[in-house]
């Protein structure tokens, strides 16, 4: 109990910082953000994409427990639902504050534009949120309901559609060649699974450490494989993205890629994205000898790296000035740096996801044994987990 309270102090403080950022944004509006008319989407959008994609990744991995009989997946299905819900709530917090007029969301229902990717994002992620709330509710009340295979398959389709559409929001913008193209939805799906696996690894480790269970021992090899393979695919996709960008005939695509590898975003790209986010985790997972701590370290680095992958992805496409009139270019790169209020909101979102999950873990029964049978009642928790 004391240990739990101690660990929850940090996220609670982060949430407090986020609340201060929220109040400041509500009072002073966009003036408080680092965004401009030239770079209208900043770290809050990146943060939303990070949390929404991670929530989908967690849901995809844990959701396999609902539709397959693989015991490793079943063992994390309840935790996965709560973790996904915590991450999605954090993402919704960021997007809600980013929107200038969130109360007008009613028009998404009364005056929908089905051609708009953001409309579909609202629809698909609302469905996902609804299904997560139901999953979490039934996991506590009637856990056997979670194992309806047909509903499970429908929910997985919802998750895949939601995260692919998240990529499509950017991919349909022909005026932003760095985003434009068919590969982005697939990239978003792969990186969502990567961030989901990393978030699950960190969570399972923290829970096992706290409760002294053997959960981590039984599940970590499977999660390690998922994270490892998606890390390698992401690395390959990133190499392809750079190669393609540097050799592209399109000025904007070439310049955005240059911004990443040798321009204003270079230090973040090489150090945080490539080295910490992808290469070191690959080494930790595939080259160094297996140990849970190494896998957890790799997951932590991956999560940090993916956050900056999202940020650079959002920023790189916008800092390249659009050529409206041939021969006129106002600047080589527009500038964007996140403001204090934006960082406060990001801290708040991270804190909220940890706090909501932590409280759920402590107050509710999130345990399932390795065979997927749900453990009923807190009194038999430890025994069942040890059996797994």
């Amino acid at each position, binding site marked *: 109990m004391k240990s739990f309270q101690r660990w929850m102090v940090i996220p609670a403080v982060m949430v407090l910082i986020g609340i201060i950022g929220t109040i400041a944004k509500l009072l002073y*509006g*966009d003036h408080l953000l680092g965004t401009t*008319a*030239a770079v*209208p*989407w900043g770290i809050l959008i990146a943060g939303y994409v990070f949390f929404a994609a991670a929530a989908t990744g967690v849901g995809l991995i844990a959701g396999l427990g609902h539709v397959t009989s693989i015991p490793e997946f079943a063992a994390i299905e309840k935790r996965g639902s709560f973790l996904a819900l915590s991450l999605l709530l954090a993402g919704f917090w960021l997007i809600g504050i980013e*929107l*200038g*007029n*969130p109360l*007008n*969301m009613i*028009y*998404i229902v009364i*005056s*929908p*534009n089905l*051609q*708009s*990717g*953001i*409309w579909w994002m*609202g629809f698909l992620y609302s469905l996902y949120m609804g299904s997560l709330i139901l999953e979490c509710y039934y996991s506590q009340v009637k856990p056997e309901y979670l194992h309806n295979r047909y509903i499970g398959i429908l929910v997985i389709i919802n998750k895949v559609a939601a995260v692919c559409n998240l990529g499509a*929001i950017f991919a*349909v*913008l*022909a*005026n*932003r060649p760095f985003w434009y193209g068919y590969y982005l939805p697939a990239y978003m799906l792969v990186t969502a699974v990567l961030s989901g696996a990393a978030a699950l690894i960190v969570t399972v480790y923290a829970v096992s450490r706290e409760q002294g269970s053997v959960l981590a021992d039984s599940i970590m090899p499977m999660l390690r494989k998922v994270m490892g393979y998606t890390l390698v695919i992401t690395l390959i996709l990133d190499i392809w993205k750079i190669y393609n960008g540097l050799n592209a005939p399109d000025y904007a695509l070439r310049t955005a890629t240059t911004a990443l590898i040798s321009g204003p975003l270079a230090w973040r790209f090489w150090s945080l994205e490539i080295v910490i986010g992808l290469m070191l985790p690959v080494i930790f997972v595939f080259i160094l000898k297996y140990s849970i701590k190494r896998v957890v370290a790799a997951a932590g680095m991956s999560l940090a790296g993916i956050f900056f992958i999202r940020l650079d992805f959002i920023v790189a496409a*916008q800092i390249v*000035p*659009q*050529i*409206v*009139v041939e*021969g*006129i270019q*106002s600047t080589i790169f527009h500038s964007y740096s996140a403001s204090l209020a934006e960082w406060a909101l990001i801290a708040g979102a991270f804190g909220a996801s940890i706090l909501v999950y932590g409280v759920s873990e402590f107050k509710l029964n999130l345990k399932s044994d390795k065979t997927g049978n749900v453990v009923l009642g807190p009194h038999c928790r430890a025994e069942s987990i040890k059996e797994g």
Partner: protein
Amino acid sequence: MAQYAMLIDASRCTGCAACRIACQMQWQLTPDIFFNRLEFRENGKYPNVRQEIVPIQCMHCDDPPCQTVCPTRATYKRQDGLVLIDPSKCIGCKYCIVACPYDVRQINERGIPEKCRFCAGYIETGGQPPCVSTCMNEVRVFGDLDDPHSEISKRMQQVKAYQLAADKGTKPRVYYVKSGK
């Protein structure tokens, strides 16, 4: 139904920015918000170099990407060609700003991504947009392309016109006079 459009002869522009100020007055904009801007470029090689000024504003595209991406239909296109915004429907997602290939949207103090309105509500009464009527060199001509007797229709017959970033496929309603023709 009128089909409104604008023809801009950039070679006549002196860069006085009266168009911008007139627009700001018309719509009571704050000094940091402007619906039209001037872009400057150098043309030619030394010693025969000259500066060209290109006025830029919302192109009121026939295939406007800002309308396509707007999740609530806050951005809509009227039958007479004007692309307008219903502020009461705007959720402030800024997708329209990101999608616009002309960088013409500006966020106002209420968080609405605003832009040139072709002076909707004013032109129907027979008035000319202030950016047109204020210009001392008659850089802009505004009118109804469906009316063969309108000044813009006549001028379009006389000059060779082009559209900015036509390769984006947005079919702009703002035309530019090709200089030297």
